[in-house]
Structures are given as structure tokens and as C-alpha cells.
């Protein structure tokens, strides 16, 4: 389990933008998660920089869907500080970090399903409306 990395090291190296074909970056900064002090294996608070309710609430939902998680909540401690804190408390069956990782995976799976069903439904709708136009 990680020790607290809530140190004064602020080394925010820039991600190589990849001069030719970059992935679509949202922020240029590298994403770094910090574990807040006082964490143990099953109970931990994570700090996300430059995140807000968008990821916070969606991730909270995904993590709460895990039966091994006893508590999950998020907060934005100060509105003018672009930081989001996520608290996870788990049973002995898993760790806070594993629950967080599973939360990300589940949310990504959910996104795939949404994309798939959305595309399917849109194509069907477009086809039906073009048929209607021809009649």
C-alpha cells in the first residue's frame, strides 16, 4: 500500500504532446493522484487535481456499486481550489486502491455500452426518417 505521497514535490512534468499524432488530451498536465494523510489499506482519501463534479459524482456512483465498498463520497473542499477529494472505505475483502481502480474500469465499460447503444439507436432513427422522406 502506498505511503502518503502528499509531499511538497510539485514536479508537474508536461506530457509530450506528440508532435505528429497525439491522443485527444483534455489537459496538458499529467494526471497525478495524491493519497491524503491518514490512509490505511482499506480507508483512503484521494486527491484529484483539475477535476470537479463531472468525474467526482460519476466515479462515486461507480465505486458505490461495488459490494465490497462500505463508504464512498466525494467533495470539492474549496470552490476556488481546482481539487476534488474522493473518500473510499472498504471491507477486508479488497483495498481502497483496488476499489478505485475497479470504479474506473466499470465507468469505462459503461461508456462503451452507452456509445454502442447510442450509435445503434441513432443509425436506426436516421434510416427510418430517410425512409419516411422517400414515402
Amino acid at each position, binding site marked *: 500500500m*502506498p505511503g502518503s505521497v502528499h509531499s511538497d514535490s510539485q514536479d508537474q512534468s508536461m506530457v509530450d504532446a506528440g508532435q505528429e499524432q497525439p491522443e485527444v488530451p483534455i489537459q496538458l498536465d499529467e494526471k497525478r493522484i495524491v493519497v491524503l494523510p491518514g490512509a490505511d489499506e482499506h480507508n483512503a482519501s484521494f486527491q484529484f487535481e483539475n477535476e470537479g463534479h463531472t468525474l467526482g459524482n460519476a466515479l462515486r456512483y461507480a465505486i458505490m456499486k461495488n459490494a465490497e465498498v462500505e463508504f464512498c463520497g466525494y467533495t470539492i473542499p474549496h470552490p476556488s481550489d481546482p481539487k476534488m477529494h474522493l473518500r473510499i472505505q472498504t471491507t477486508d475483502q479488497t483495498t481502497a486502491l483496488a476499489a478505485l481502480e475497479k470504479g*474506473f474500469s466499470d465507468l469505462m465499460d459503461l461508456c462503451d*455500452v452507452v456509445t454502442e447503444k447510442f450509435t445503434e439507436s*441513432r443509425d436506426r432513427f436516421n434510416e427510418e426518417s430517410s425512409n419516411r422522406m422517400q414515402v
Partner: protein
Amino acid sequence: MAPLVPSQEELQRRRIIGINAETVTNIPSTDFPGHWPGESHSWALDKFKNGFNVEFHRNDPYEASFSLIGLDAAVANAFRRILMAEIPTLAIEYVFVHNNTSVIQDEVLAQRLGLIPLKGSVEGINWMQWFRKESEEDDGTPADTPSDFNTVVMHLDVECTINADAEPGEQDPRKLYHNAHVYAKDLTFHAVGRQEEYFAGDGAIQPVNPDILIAKLRPGQVIQLEMHCIKGIGADHAKFSPVATASYRLLPDIKIERPIIGEDAKKFAKCFPKGVITLEPVTSAEASRPGSGYEGHAGELKAVVRDAFNDTVSRECLRHEEFQGKVKLGRVRDHFIFNVESTGQFESDVLFLEAVKVLKLKCARWKRGLSDLMA
């Protein structure tokens, strides 16, 4: 022990948020493990897949409307927020004023220019990369050099002159002078390097709406500008937001619990927008069933819910004495009716797919960052 499976009625009851005259009830989601004793609400992808559905109501380039059914508010809201604030678009960011003798000040003019929605080849816009500005923290990272892959250059070069051909006594400045009004269509695009291929022909960068008024001039006044357009996100400035609006509402639910007949039914229908409530005659079968409330009313009109979709949930019907206890209003917790209006750079349905992609990418990047903690 096999998990308890709640009855269909119970599940239906949990899906409805109650809307009463003064209160809203049954608000929070309860489909989490541990909330209902004995029931399993753990995340299961195939369960989500079976329950999730998308219905399209409208799909135009500048406006799309669709329902996402079987989703939690936390996720639907994430999509909505990303649509507004986190999808990259191209907009004018830097304005170099070579000459501006018009009455509109440089900074005001620059602000107006920034807000003009641009369009162009989607392939080209997707090919473009970020232009990294100079760091605000003064840590010495220099700004990127403007290049074909991060900056689009546009020019505005207009001079107002007297129109010698104007009729005597003409009052309209647009006829009296040339270029009295400067419109968005006067912006000219100058392709650089590979942009000549990506933004060729109809794919050229241009304003979505050519008739946006930028400034008004009088003879002798000149505006000469060079503009640099870069990619940005709505969280940084609203001009980068790809949508005019992106919103959702929950599907309204109307339940008539006791018969509303005759004049009352007509009044009841008037409490709702057109088409929501319809009037149907009471059938003799209904009238002959004891305890139905329709006894002896065969042939009279009764109120029936036809289509709750268009209801505004104004709660007007709850204000009237005669409908007390006869109707129950609500909204369906997991039925989100999205409405997305694009500003024109991308098509509305593509924007939603883009929003899903952004959320997934966000997760992927953070998840990758977790490996540092694992060590």
C-alpha cells in the same frame, strides 16, 4: 443465499420520483449494494446492458433530442457537463489589431470576434492540436510557436467608403456607404501548410452564421486585424463551448388513481399542455364493474393520460380541490430526455458521442496514473 428479487411493482415504485404540491419525494437513488436488505445491486455490465436503452426523438445537425433510459443521474450529469465544458473546439483567441479607427474599442471588438462560432472540415479540426499558452505560474515554459497544426489564421480587412452610386437623398447607411456594416462573413481564412489540404474548398474555416454583425463603420474608418484561432474547452471560456444548450429533463409520469369524469375531465385536460390528457367515453364494461368508480357513467367522458412526454409538470392540477387524491404526478428517475443544440462546429449527435469518449479518456488517464501509487 440467493439475493432477493423485488417485485416489478416495487421496482416501478422506486423508479418514480414523487412530485407533490409543495414537496418532492423519493429523490435519491437507492440501487446500491447494502441499501435494500438481501438484494444485490452490485455493478454488473450485462445487467446494465440489458436495462439501458436509447431512443431518438430528433436528429438534426444543430439540434438533437434523445432519451437515455436506465442510467443514473450521476452519469447522465457527467455527460451533460462534459458537453458544455470539456469538448475541444476551435475559436478565435488572439487578435492582433493592425489598425482600428472604428468607434468600437479594440478590446470590445476582440471579445466580439472571440464569440463567433466557426465551422470547417471536421477532419481538419480533429487533426489540430492544442496551442500551449505561456504558463501563468511564470515557470519559464514558453508558449508554443504558432504552426499549421495548432493555429488557424484569419484576417479582417475592411474600409468604409462613400458609395458614389447611391441615390440622392438615400438615408440607409448600408446603401450610402460601402462596408458600413462589418459582418462575420467578412472574416477571411488563410490556410497555412497542411491546412491547405485539410481545410480545402467547403471545408474552409468560416463563421457558422455569416450575418453576425461585428461592427459599424463610417467613411474613412478602417479595421485591419489578424486573428489566431486555437483549440480550447468551455471550462476555460464559454466561446469554446461546442453547444448552445445541452440539457436534460426527467420523463414526467402522470397517474390517474381515481376516475375523473365529465366536466371535471375537461377541466383536468386543461391543466396540462395539449395532447397530454385525452378524453375517452366510459365503456359499458367499465360502468358495469362495481367499485370501478364508473358505475352509472357509461358514455360520459373520462380523462386518460395519452402522452406524458410533453408535460411540463406545472402541478396546476394539484391546485384544484376536485382533483385532490385523484392524480399522482411524478418523474421517472432513470429516463433522461436530452436536448443538445450544437453551435455548428460539430453535429449534435457526434457531440454526445464525443462527450462519452471524453469521460472514458478521463478515466483511462487517471487509471494509468494509479500505477504510480501501486508501487
